[in-house]
């Protein structure tokens, strides 16, 4: 096994063990039997067909938001804007539905999805442009833009797009059938999941086997050499940020159309943030992000089920996510530091 492979194995196993330990301590602290509760969570996450489908539903936006972090990371950029890109994509996608509610399905559905993706691309591309042209740190700009996008959605659903039929509940009109992303196998799993997996595959091939991928690698290491082989940092920054944003924006409009059925305030429960965690847990690797997104999707779905059946607040899933991330970061940091010392 290669050195990098060994580090990854140690980090995965050790991180997993550290997480289970931390999770157990947390569960004991809130007065729950750790083993039973963790077992229940595994069951609620993946125990039967229904649990699995709910986990896949949660995994879809998480995967797309993770891809939106990984691609810019290939250029050394740290985008934390998945949440905002989701909201802005949902906003632009919904605009199509609100303006043309009676369009035929073959026109309305694709236009809505493209508008959602474009919205995400614009929101993220703006941060890319600021980074490339004005040296504005993309981590800060994307973080701030998250809050702005959420407020813009609130502005729309409390204002011009508020559905009078919703009896005061702030939401847009319900999406007509012609603007509903199709679901699969009679479950709530929708085609966004397939799109996410295909995107992960294509991006993996793109960065591993094409001239473009080599260009990104060269640029992230040395901009001058990148320019010499014909890759412009400005153009590539815009491109990777916009593609990433398009994926997250697509996730936003899919979530709105397929799951919520209307544009409303709680369309994302921190999927953008969770996508960021998944991107880091996968080591910024497109394909590895797929199983990890499904695993974390299961954790969140299990959190919801625990709240329903065992009255454990779903916020505990956020705590467990945080603990998982702390464990993974700590152990992988230690593993790579150790190997650097011995290597």
């Amino acid at each position, binding site marked *: 096994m290669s050195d990098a492979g060994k580090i990854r194995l140690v980090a995965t196993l050790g991180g997993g063990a550290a997480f289970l330990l931390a999770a157990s301590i947390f569960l004991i602290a*809130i007065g729950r039997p750790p083993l039973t509760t963790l077992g229940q969570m595994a069951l609620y996450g993946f125990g039967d067909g229904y649990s699995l489908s709910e986990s896949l539903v949660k995994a879809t936006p998480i995967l797309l938001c993770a891809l939106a972090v990984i691609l810019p990371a290939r250029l*050394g*950029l*740290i985008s*934390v804007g998945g949440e905002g890109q989701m909201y802005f994509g949902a906003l632009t996608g919904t605009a199509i539905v609100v303006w043309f509610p009676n369009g035929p399905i073959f026109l309305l559905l694709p236009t809505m999805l493209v508008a959602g993706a474009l919205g995400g691309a614009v929101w993220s591309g703006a941060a890319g442009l*600021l980074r490339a042209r*004005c*040296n*504005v*740190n*993309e*981590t*800060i*700009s994307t*973080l*701030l*833009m*998250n*809050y*702005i996008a959420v*407020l*813009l959605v*609130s*502005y729309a659903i*409390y*204002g011009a797009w508020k559905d009078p039929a919703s009896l005061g509940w702030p939401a847009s009109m319900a999406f007509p059938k012609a603007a509903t992303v199709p679901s699969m196998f009679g479950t709530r799993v929708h085609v966004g999941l397939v799109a996410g997996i295909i995107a992960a595959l294509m991006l993996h091939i793109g960065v591993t086997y094409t001239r473009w991928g080599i260009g990104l690698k060269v640029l992230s290491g040395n901009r001058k050499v990148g320019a010499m082989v014909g890759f412009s940092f400005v153009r590539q920054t815009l491109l990777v940020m916009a593609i990433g944003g398009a994926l997250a924006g697509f996730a936003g409009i899919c979530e709105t159309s397929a799951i919520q059925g209307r544009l409303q305030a709680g369309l994302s429960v*921190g999927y953008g*943030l969770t996508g*960021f*965690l998944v991107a*880091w847990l996968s080591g910024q690797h497109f394909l590895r992000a797929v199983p990890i997104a499904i695993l974390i999707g299961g954790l969140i779905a299990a959190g919801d089920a625990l709240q329903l059946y065992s009255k454990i*607040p779903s*916020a*505990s*899933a*956020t*705590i*467990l*996510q*945080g*603990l998982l*991330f*702390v464990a993974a*970061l*700590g*152990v*992988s*940091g*230690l593993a*790579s*530091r150790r190997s650097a010392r011995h290597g």
Partner: protein
Amino acid sequence: MADDMLLVAGSWAAAMLRSSTPLMMVTLGETLTQRVGIVNLGVEGQMLCGACVGFAVAAQSGSPALGLAAGAIAGLLLALIHGVLCLGCGANQIGSGIAVWTLGLGLTSYFGRSAVGGKVSGLSPLAGPGFADLPFAGPILSQLTPIAPLAIIIVLAAGFWLYRTRTGLNWRIVGESFQTARALGIRPTIVQAQGILAGGLLSGFAGAILSVDYTQTWANEMTKGRGFVAVGLVIVARWNPYLVLPVVLLFGLSEAATLRLQATGLTLSPYLIACLPYVVCLLCVVIVSIREGRIGGMPAELISVFGRRG
């Protein structure tokens, strides 16, 4: 007439100071942390913890001062995780900050459930209502608690300490170059740990000011990104504690202005108005980034973690 104007000016100044005090403390904390070469995005979570714990303690004990102290300690404890991850385990700082934020978010929304919507009585104003009619000073004395002047003193003291004392110099050296620091017999890791903990203490304090003194209530995610705004404002203030003061006050002025504009019956959506702080922060960062060019006032050791620039 002139007296009325002074009264209005005084109440504006009081509103500006009240709304900018939490931001002042968290921005100062992040400034100190970044001065030693560490970025901490976890300040948002630390602020939340400070707000939640501070509120709970103030409500239980009936003492706002005790709440403020407890909030600061809560922020410190959460920052400890960032320190252990970054310095102890060599984890990536951005990743670690997000992990700390996630933890703070989860912990406060879990343990803060029962406190949502509760009320505490904050610190009492600097002077009783009898002084309210004094021109200018009246509203300031009757509407401000001792927290705002205390915060200003802390900022000035931190600036003095950083630029005028031996240990402050050590911190600045660590932020510029670990190698030089080691050559001078300073242990960079210890200083960095101190920087992270100082930031944690101040961000927790900031959160507690928000819940105990300013809003006197607790709500989920009540910091609303103030921690991230602070990370942006550090750049605008060019990593200088003294500059934190005008930058944050300008910010508080815009917030006070939007609140007052709404009160005059301006028909602009409150959601659009609420965007203003983030937009203003972003614009400030853009302007400073364009003007400062390649590095700006950034401590050199930050460059490796905070994105290569230029």
